[in-house]
């Protein structure tokens, strides 16, 4: 190689390096894009342009040339060869042009879920076939879907679309066909459109969707440039009968009949047999019925009654005559929680006679807890367990002040029901007059005096020895004063105080002289020893000379005394028609003597450690001895004012009662329902706070009500009375709703209190249980936390893939204590797929409209781009290669044909 050639080589290499460097620098600076004629051109692999850097070497090659060509032709060949190399470099750099395309890609989304008929599937296949045949340069793809979507590959040389099979019949799916997810199918389609194609999707479906939401997806489809057309299946649903709803009243109580309303949809008029199950057995009242179903919705009412409290699941099954596509939707179950049997606390003064009312209430579906007066609850929490409280024939002194307070709060604050039943120790006879319990009752105990009232002379013999000093003495005086005040004007009273000697504190006189009597009693002072006999004798002397039909002595003492003479004296008094009762105060009394005296004197003996009981004992004793409140005569109670709880009870046919305690009705709003022949209240009621208070002035056992015990209406009367007035709710109940959406239960609790305030900061838990009614082998029994999402709003989401009826109970706590509860039932009867009974054309129409699509598009419409264009990047390297081929041929031509200097002569 000559020196000149080496110089040229160096120059060529330098030029090549410069070209390569320039290209690489330019490429590194950013995109290589140019706009020509309104179109963008770019290089997708611009680094390959550097290959063109070899072109200077081609020119250097000329310096070595031995070719027998004219110089000009050699240079022309070099230029052509350099162009060819540049062309190939350009092809390697992948030039591309961004242009508008009008080719359409259409994805058919064919619903193959279970609700689709074979006819619809065949029509869908024909529709796709038609588009396939008419597609031309356009692209057609096929997706089938039920709960999930599946691409059906279509080879370009395919002649006919393969047969479509329902998802539940296809062998290559594992999710069955009991679901339809239009949204998932459309989302899959997004990934199928080839670049540079206008995007079309055609939904062939009945529009019934069980998951996802096509409408929400439609606007996204529009954003992504997908035009959605729809072609609803017009063959309609197959012949179908389905139970769509089962309604049970909100308030179901044990023993109360009610109607279960079933809604059955039928696509055509048909006959069917319906069976209603309560739990796992046929409903007793109305278990099987043959019905004629009209096309459309049918309501069927069946009677039922719940005998046992707790969750009760009703299931309705339908057996239609003739064809029926889905069996799963022929059964629908729902659960109602029936409150537990109401509990009644029955406190009976004579427990041996409690069985009559207890049996009657038990027969009326009540839990009855019979107790003696000693077992009356002393705390509100204990009494809160009961729904109704009956206090029968119990004297006031057997009920402590604390217990009375609890009873009142139970009625007033907790809404409990309370009934005082009559008897010898009840109402006024039991010393209830003037107590807070009397104030709570709808009757007063100071009854009108009756004409045949016997006059009474009573002598109070009160121990005023030194041991009585202080509170005992004061309470004894209170008792004496109360006794005097209880007596009528025609009654007589004397008070004898005694220590070692008797003193006439009040001479025998008319009780009308109340002021003087009270003043004299106030003078009693305690001092000295204890000598009963002289005092008792003084009382005897006073009574003997007094004219009265009833003569009675009440002896109060707190100490020991000599027994001698007292029994004889009492016997003598008894012989004169004078009765004696004794009251022993404290632990030092001679109990045997006092009991003997009372026994011989035809009276009663009382012993108490608490001096506070003295006034009650005196009052009770006075009431007993006067018996001015007792009416012992046969009568038939008359209905004074109708009451709902007497529905079905024929009071007019009720047998006679043998007596009652006379009372006076309080003014309105107290209601007197039953009255005696004298118009005095037998049954009265009124509201006290949140609860009811009732008075039954006769008794509930085999004395005055002995004939009623044999009356067929006895049990019903008491059961309905108690049920009407018992407490219905124990805690605040907060609204809770539960619904199933996309295999998820959404629970919402609205916590708003009675003062219009939101309940915030509760710790709430919801318990879900089911499916109820024994269906399924793995029932759910779970707790889930509710979280607060807004003032007074708590929410939880619970996955649910089971079908049937479920019971939800929520417990709302504050500081570890339950403050409210919620209860809801949830029905998820069967897959929603089986609820699709008619095509949802509205859904498909709206979804199509929002994307600019139409219903039932023709093939022409389907592949018509209209004014729509899509940007398409067309790669130009194949065209550049064509150019290169042409250049190569030209290059050869230049070697084979002498173009210049044809007449050249050397």
């Amino acid at each position, binding site marked *: 190689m000559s020196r000149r050639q080496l110089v040229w080589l160096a120059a060529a290499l330098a030029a090549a390096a410069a070209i390569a460097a320039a290209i690489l620098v330019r490429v590194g600076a950013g995109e290589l894009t140019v706009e020509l004629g309104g179109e963008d051109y770019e290089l997708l692999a611009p680094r390959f342009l550097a*290959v063109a850097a*070899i072109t200077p*070497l*081609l020119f250097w*090659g000329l310096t*070595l*040339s*031995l*070719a*027998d060509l004219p110089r000009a032709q050699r240079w022309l060949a070099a230029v052509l060869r350099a162009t060819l*190399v540049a062309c*190939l*470099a350009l092809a*390697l750099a992948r030039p591309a042009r961004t242009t508008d395309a009008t080719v359409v890609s259409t994805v058919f989304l064919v619903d193959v879920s279970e609700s689709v008929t074979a006819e619809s599937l065949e029509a869908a296949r024909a529709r796709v076939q038609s588009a396939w045949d008419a597609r031309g340069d356009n692209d057609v793809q096929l997706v089938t879907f039920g709960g*999930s*979507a*599946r*691409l059906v590959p279509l080879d370009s040389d395919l002649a006919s679309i393969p047969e479509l099979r329902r998802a539940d019949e296809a062998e290559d799916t594992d999710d069955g066909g009991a679901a339809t997810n239009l949204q998932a199918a459309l989302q*899959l389609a997004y*990934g*199928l459109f*080839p*670049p540079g194609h206008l995007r079309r999707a055609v939904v062939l479906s009945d529009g019934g969707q069980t998951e996802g*939401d096509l*409408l*929400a997806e439609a*606007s996204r489809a529009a*954003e992504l440039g997908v035009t959605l057309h729809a072609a609803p299946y017009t063959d309609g649903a197959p012949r179908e009968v389905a139970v769509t709803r089962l309604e049970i*009243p*909100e*308030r179901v109580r044990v023993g109360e009949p009610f109607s279960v309303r079933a809604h059955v949809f039928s696509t055509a008029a048909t006959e069917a047999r319906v069976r209603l199950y309560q739990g796992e057995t046929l409903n007793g009242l109305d278990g099987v019925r043959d019905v004629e179903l009209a096309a459309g919705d049918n309501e069927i009412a069946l009677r039922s009654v719940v005998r046992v409290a707790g969750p009760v699941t009703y299931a309705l099954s339908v057996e239609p005559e003739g064809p029926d596509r889905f069996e799963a939707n022929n059964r629908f179950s729902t659960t109602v929680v029936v409150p537990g049997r109401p509990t009644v606390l029955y406190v009976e003064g004579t427990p041996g006679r409690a069985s009559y009312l207890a049996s009657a209430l038990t027969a009326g579906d009540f839990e009855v807890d019979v107790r003696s007066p000693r077992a009356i609850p002393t705390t509100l929490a204990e009494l809160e367990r009961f729904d109704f409280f009956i206090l029968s024939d119990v004297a006031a002194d057997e009920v402590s002040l604390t217990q009375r307070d609890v009873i009142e709060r139970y009625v007033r604050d907790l809404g409990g029901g309370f009934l005082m039943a009559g008897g010898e120790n009840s109402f006024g006879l039991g010393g209830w007059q003037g107590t807070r319990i009397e104030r709570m009752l709808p009757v007063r105990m100071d009854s009108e005096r009756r004409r045949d009232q016997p006059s009474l002379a009573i002598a109070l013999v009160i121990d005023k020895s030194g041991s009585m000093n202080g509170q005992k003495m004061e309470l004894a005086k209170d008792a004496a004063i109360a006794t005097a005040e209880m007596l009528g004007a025609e009654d007589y009273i004397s008070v004898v105080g005694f220590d070692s000697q008797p003193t006439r504190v009040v001479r025998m006189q008319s009780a009308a002289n109340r002021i003087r009597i009270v003043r004299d009693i106030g003078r009693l002072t305690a001092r000295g020893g204890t000598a009963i006999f002289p005092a008792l004798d003084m009382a005897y002397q006073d009574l003997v000379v007094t004219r009265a039909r009833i003569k009675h002595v009440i002896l109060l003492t707190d100490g020991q005394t000599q027994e001698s003479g007292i029994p004889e004296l009492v016997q003598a008094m008894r012989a004169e028609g004078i009765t004696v009762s004794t009251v022993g105060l404290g632990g030092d009394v001679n109990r045997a003597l006092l009991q003997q005296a009372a026994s011989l004197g035809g009276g009663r003996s009382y012993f108490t450690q608490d001096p506070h009981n003295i006034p009650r004992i005196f009052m009770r004793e006075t009431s007993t001895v006067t018996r001015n409140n007792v009416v012992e005569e046969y009568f038939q109670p008359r209905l004074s004012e109708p009451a*709902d709880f007497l529905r079905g009870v024929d009071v007019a046919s009720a047998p006679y009662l043998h007596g009652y305690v006379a009372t006076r009705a309080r003014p309105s709003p107290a209601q007197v329902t039953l009255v005696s022949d004298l118009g005095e209240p037998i049954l009265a009621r009124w509201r006290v706070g949140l609860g009811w208070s009732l008075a039954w002035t006769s008794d509930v056992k085999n004395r005055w009500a002995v004939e009623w015990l044999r009356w067929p209406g006895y049990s019903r009367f008491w059961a309905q009375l108690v049920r009407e007035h018992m407490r*219905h709710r124990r805690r605040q109940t907060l*609204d809770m*709703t539960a619904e199933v959406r996309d295999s998820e239960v959404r629970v919402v609790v*609205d916590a708003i209190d*009675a003062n*219009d305030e*939101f309940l915030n900061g509760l710790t709430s838990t919801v318990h879900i249980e089911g499916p109820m009614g024994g269906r399924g082998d793995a029932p759910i029994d779970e707790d889930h936390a509710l979280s*607060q*999402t*807004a*003032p007074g709003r708590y929410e939880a989401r619970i*996955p649910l893939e089971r079908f049937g009826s479920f019971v939800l109970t929520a417990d709302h706590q504050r500081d570890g204590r339950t403050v409210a509860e919620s209860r809801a039932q949830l029905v998820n009867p069967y897959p929603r797929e089986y609820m699709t009974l008619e095509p949802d054309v509205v859904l498909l129409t*709206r979804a199509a*409209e*929002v994307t600019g699509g139409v219903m039932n598009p023709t093939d022409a419409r389907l592949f018509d781009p209209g004014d729509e264009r899509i940007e398409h990047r067309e790669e130009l*390297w*194949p065209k550049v290669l*064509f150019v290169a*081929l042409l250049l*190569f*041929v030209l290059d*050869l031509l230049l*070697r084979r*044909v002498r173009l210049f*200097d*044809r007449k050249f*002569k*050397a």
Partner: protein
Amino acid sequence: MELAGLSLSEVLTVLGGFAAAVVVLYLLKLRRRQVEVPFVHLWQQVLAEKQTTRLFSALKRILSLLVALLVVAALAFATGDPRYAGATDEGRTTVVLIDASASMQATDVAPSRLDAARERVAPLVAAMASADRMLVAQMDASTVPLSPLTSEPRLVEDGLERLRPTDVAADLGRGLRFSLDVLAGQPRPRVVIVSDGVLGPTGRVAERAREAGVEIDWIPIGEGGRNVAITAFSVRRYPLDKSRSEVLVELFNPTDEDASVELELSGDGEPIDVQRLRVGAGERLRRFFQNVTGADRTLEAHVAMADGAPDAQPADDRAYARLPERRRARVLAVSGGNLYLSAALLLDEYLDVTEVAPADYPPPGEFDVTIFDGWVPPSPPGTDAIYLAPVPAEGVEGPFVIRGEIERPFFDRVDRDHPIVQFTALRDVNIAASLDVELQDGDRVVAGDTGAPLLVTGSRSGRRLIALLFDVRRSDLPLRVAWPLLLINSIDHFVQEDARYLSSYETGETWYVPAPGDVTEATLVTPSGEERLVPVVDGRAVCTGLEAGFYTLRAGETEEVFAANLGPSDEAILEPAEALELAGEPAGEPEIGAASVRTEIWTWLVLLALAVIGVEWFTYHRRISV
């Protein structure tokens, strides 16, 4: 081998054409130039030597022709874009699910987790073998493919560019379901999840994926950083006194360190309250703002670190709420005197109540709702109406035909879904008697006894009605809170106020936004100003959104603003998960081989042609070839 460009016949045609041209050209003999020599015998020997090299020349000529044909063939086949046939049936099929949830906006890795995700996916795309196919999808509340399932890496890379952050929680279950749909029947299926690992439960779908033999891999993203988030923000008007509202704000500090923050509450764009709060490590701190009166339309909460430095997740520092707009309802009460009614109507200050006696009906003026208390007008009213014990006078046609009376009915059946009975407790209401009426088609029993309706809705003469079929004065209903609530709910029902109104929707959920019933489409304007058409069905626009903020729904002449926030989720937790367990197995790490040269055969053919052309140029000029 198959051709992706021209078909084989086209390629052969091109080849045949150009090859023929080349052969023809080689048949041509270059006209030799004439050289005059002084004495021809001097060249005899030269010519004799030429005779001896003729065979060699012929061979050289054929070789040159073959070289030219090789170039033509290489270029002609290159135009056919030949591919390995194995690309469609032997390669790996991969679905890349890129988490685009709110937590992926965190800036703990610069510039953001989403950008980091793109970078981590790029090697995966670069390493695609020619037989591999890949689809990249954005996984947020739903899963949307960003590219087709393709063996073309460029399309996948284009898809990555379309990835956008959202204010939603990612739903991996849906992502996996989508992946299974795509991968069904595909060879060597694989799902690659690109996420920080804060993902919700997947349900059974992960097991299905494992059972189907789908390989599940995970590319973790994120490093963790400090963050205090607003995880709940809502406002409700009090049910009775709707002029006042209560606001709940919940702050969540998911980190291990206590944080001091400043919480600002704005109403209608104006600050209402600013509080400095300390949120303990891992604490969810709730604040209730009671009796809020400073806002009529919108509320916004903003939390910022007290030291002024930004936290690593700006997406959860703001939350939005919309108060239901209040407008005064003009109520006409036609009553002979009912203190219970008057008292109940006094409870809502947004009611303009006009009371008239039946004799003075109709009074002048326009009203939204008329309440007829125990009286029925002689002609149908011109407003929506609430009837209380609608017993018409003789000769007057009432809204119901009355058959008689029912004694002591109870509210046994209550349609709890109906807005007029919300928050009411009716079960124990004692009623002396109610009307036994004949219902008309379209009437709906909202509440009633087992045998008879007590509360009915319907329409007469084109006007809606709500009827309470008993005299409230003959019941203890007026003594209960349920009475004013029932009345106010009924009036609200007519004037389109819903106490169950939600102050914000959850992003990513399907929203059913009230819209005028006579339109079929509405326009939804997103917080970033984009507009899109949404369908309206049964008076509700069905739509969804992925951005938190205020949206506007335009339907007909009306325009409604509503808010959307990220719903309850763990998106505030920035600490990346240590492992992603799916169906009891941890997701693996994807194998990424060395980035392969994209084996596009045509490029090799062109390079071959280039090399031949280059070499041939020199051989020609050195007369080695012709």
